[in-house]
């Protein structure tokens, strides 16, 4: 067995110091060491995007990174996107527009949408479809995902979005 390395990672605002095998994937570290199981594994080859998280504010596929590569970084997962008990406008958009069915791709889809809207707050339908090309959904045919992102973009632009209770 390979020698373990010590890493320090801030995840959803909380600092963690952990011993990991150098071969441990970031997604396995998040899911199995930190018990943050909202980030999913869909493919092992970086195509599906179910494992998308934010690393220092930019989206990455956490199955394509080693945990040791995240040493010293800030990671945001689906669990940390909105304050406890409330929803981020993107989460709200997915709920409002029926942007999910089985929900498995959804956390990754939401994190990828976050990246998209960060760089393009007012995307066209085509830009949304292109922007999400790294994420696969098998259930929705993407139509309502596009609507969800449009809804979120509008909410975020107008700032009209009051925190929505997740318990609604």
């Amino acid at each position, binding site marked *: *067995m390979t020698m373990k390395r010590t890493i320090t990672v801030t995840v959803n605002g909380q600092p963690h110091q952990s011993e990991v*095998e150098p*071969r*441990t994937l970031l997604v396995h570290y998040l*899911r199995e060491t930190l*018990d*943050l*199981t*909202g*980030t*999913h*594994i*869909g*493919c*092992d*080859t970086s*195509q*599906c995007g*179910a494992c998308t998280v934010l690393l220092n504010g930019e989206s990455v596929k956490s199955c394509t990174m080693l945990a040791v590569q995240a040493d010293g970084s800030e990671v945001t*997962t*689906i*669990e940390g996107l*909105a304050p406890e008990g409330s*929803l981020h406008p993107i*989460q709200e958009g*997915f*709920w*409002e527009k*029926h942007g*999910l*069915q*089985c*929900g*498995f*791709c*959804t*956390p990754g889809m*939401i994190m990828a949408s976050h990246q998209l809207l960060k760089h393009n707050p007012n995307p066209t*339908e*085509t830009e*949304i*479809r*292109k922007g*999400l*090309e790294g*994420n*696969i*959904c*098998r*259930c*929705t*045919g*993407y*139509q*309502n*995902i*596009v609507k969800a992102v449009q809804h979120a973009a509008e909410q975020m632009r107008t700032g009209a979005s009051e925190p929505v209770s*997740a*318990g*609604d």
Partner: protein
Amino acid sequence: MGIAALVGSPIKRREDPRLITGQATYIDDIKLVGMLHMAVLRSPYGHARINSIDVEAARKLPGVHAVYTAKDLNGVVGKVPVAAPLPPHITEGMGRRGPLAEGKVRFYGDPVAVVVAEDRYIARDATDLIEVDYEPLPAITDVEKAMQPDAPLLYEEFGTNVGLPIHPPTEDIEKIFADTVANGGVVVKGRLVNQRLAPAAMETRGVVAEFRKVDKSLTVWSSSQIPHLLRNYLAEQMGLPQHQVRVIVPEVGGGFGSKLNIYPEEALAAYAAIKTGRPVKWIEDRSENFAATIHGRGQVNYVEAAADKDGKIQGLKVQVISDLGAYLQFFTDVIAIAFTMPMVSGCYDIPAIYCSCDIVFTNKAPTDAYRGAGRPEATYVAERAIDLVARELKKDPADVRRVNFIKPEQFPHKVATGAVYDTGNYAVALDKALELANYRGLRQEQEQKRAAGKLMGIGISSYVEICGLGPKGSAPFGTYESARVRVEQSGTVMVYTGSSPHGQGEETTFTQLVGDEFGIPAESVIVLHGDTDSTPEGRGTYGSRGTAVGGTAVFNAVQKLKEKMKLVASHMLEASVSDVELEDGKFYVTGSPQKSVTFVEVASTANLSNTLAAGIEPGLEATSFFEPSACTFPFGTHICVVEIDKDTGEAELTKYYAVDDCGRQLNPMIVQGQIHGGIAQGVGQAMFESVVYDDDGQLLTSSFMDYAMPMSFEFPQFELDHTVTPTPINPMGVKGVGEAGTIGSTPAVTAAVADALGVAHVDMPYLPEKLWKVINHS
């Protein structure tokens, strides 16, 4: 109803808050104390003899607890379950297997050994240390070649790869063909390949098994569509009484039929848990999912249609060849026979139909139900036949459909295959779709584009499918659903359903129907599913039966409770029970609505019982089983536009219109979502997807790098509309919608591509290279 009705409203899903916040629990999120991890060693060959397996090195790796091969399971674990083994060969054992390969491997991905270890990394490391001495054998992957006498045999003792040949006499159909031609009609022919597809749910399969020694109780968590069937069959396989097996289905990340099954890994994890005394988890990786989870479709169909001058089809001849793969999974042997053969008549009144079928073993993964399960193939046959007739007679394909439709007054209608369609109004759906698409405008646009040298094609597909299994006798295990509904003291209604949703939103739709029946808000209804210890018997969510069968069981249980609550209320109101009515959550005496008791008051009285009238049993709980008397037949018409780049052969789907009729809709938002997703999968088959093996049985599409999943930028907006033709088969008039989009869409895309290229037919998928060759006649 005075208050806003829930049924028919696009209310937001009750499932979503846990799913969008990362708080849902899928199978891989389950962590038990002392849990070990299982990895499976699989065959790297399509067909090979196993001379020996040496597991010693793997066993010695630190962290490894056990390694098992077929030898360990012999006489302990039964064969992988098959719902309906068919004579003559399958009932004799052809295509049956234990959970691990013995003597031979018959497909790439065939499980050979398992390792159980401290973590998944070590388990995987250890599989690399197992040495298997294989002697490669000639493989057979082409289903038609597999039928030939000189083909390599998967099961030598049977002397053939054909599990069951169905070849009815042909004299009658030959006469009809001859007569039609003699009367000036035409005969069209085609060979249609419905290629293999990977269901590719975004969540792969997974199992967690735990065994308690003291009472020999086995708990299995599985990402499954069929918790109760899994419990029943797994119990038999493991030699345990049913009550000692509990199956829990957590959140399921998509199934599409691929989890309507009982796989080797469920028994393997159970066996490992029993032997090691520790909980055992197995999570399939994506390449295993491509290799060892069932594939869909895999049919070759020869079709001939004899039509008169007006385009009316007088006779249809269909030869179905079903590629089973190497072994039988739960429904592998019956998909083509039970779902393709009965449905080849499509929406059409065809006086004579001949259909043969061969189900054939090949050195590939087993096929089984994938969204549509046999009906997409049938619809493809019928729709291609109609389009070939239209082309031959130079008629508009919409007109040829209209000439052949079963008329509304003909329902219920028995087609020549023997299927009895409940209700339908096919012309209305077609007309609505033509209008939605501005069909005439599209044809004009096409003319202009053609004049400018561009390739634009328009495709129409009118489909009818079969949903809502039942009826009685259609499967050996019984095809009912059940529900237990309990009204608690607080007025909260607990609904325990035997159905097992995995993305369909049944928690929401069942809430809607219960809420409206009682006149109470959605928040007062809780829907629970997926645990065989707490939910009543169910048969699972598949075949678009969740609402039509499972929902009806809920509906019927609610009716029983309404009667009981009226009785309780009648004593509270000092009125005759026949005079008590329920509206807006209040029980009142007919004609005097001011004299009423609330739903909550009745619930409280019945549950507290102290003030309950003598002779009334306390509590409010009812169970209902619903076994439909017949199936339902949803239908619709899809129209699409495809443009093809002449220089590159690249096809683009530019417009898509769908008019679907699934009977009454409980939640139109969810219905539309099902159609969107269905269309995407059907279009995916037509344009991108294909499971490919080479001649040696090597799987060439074993990851998302090689298997082309449809992506967001490959679709236009789907424009939807609907008609509503309720069914009399269940009290709510619902038919089912889960598979309609997939069934309706594929033939539309094929028709559009053929239309764009000006050819009779091109086999799917429409990748640029293939279309470029057609364009350039190479």
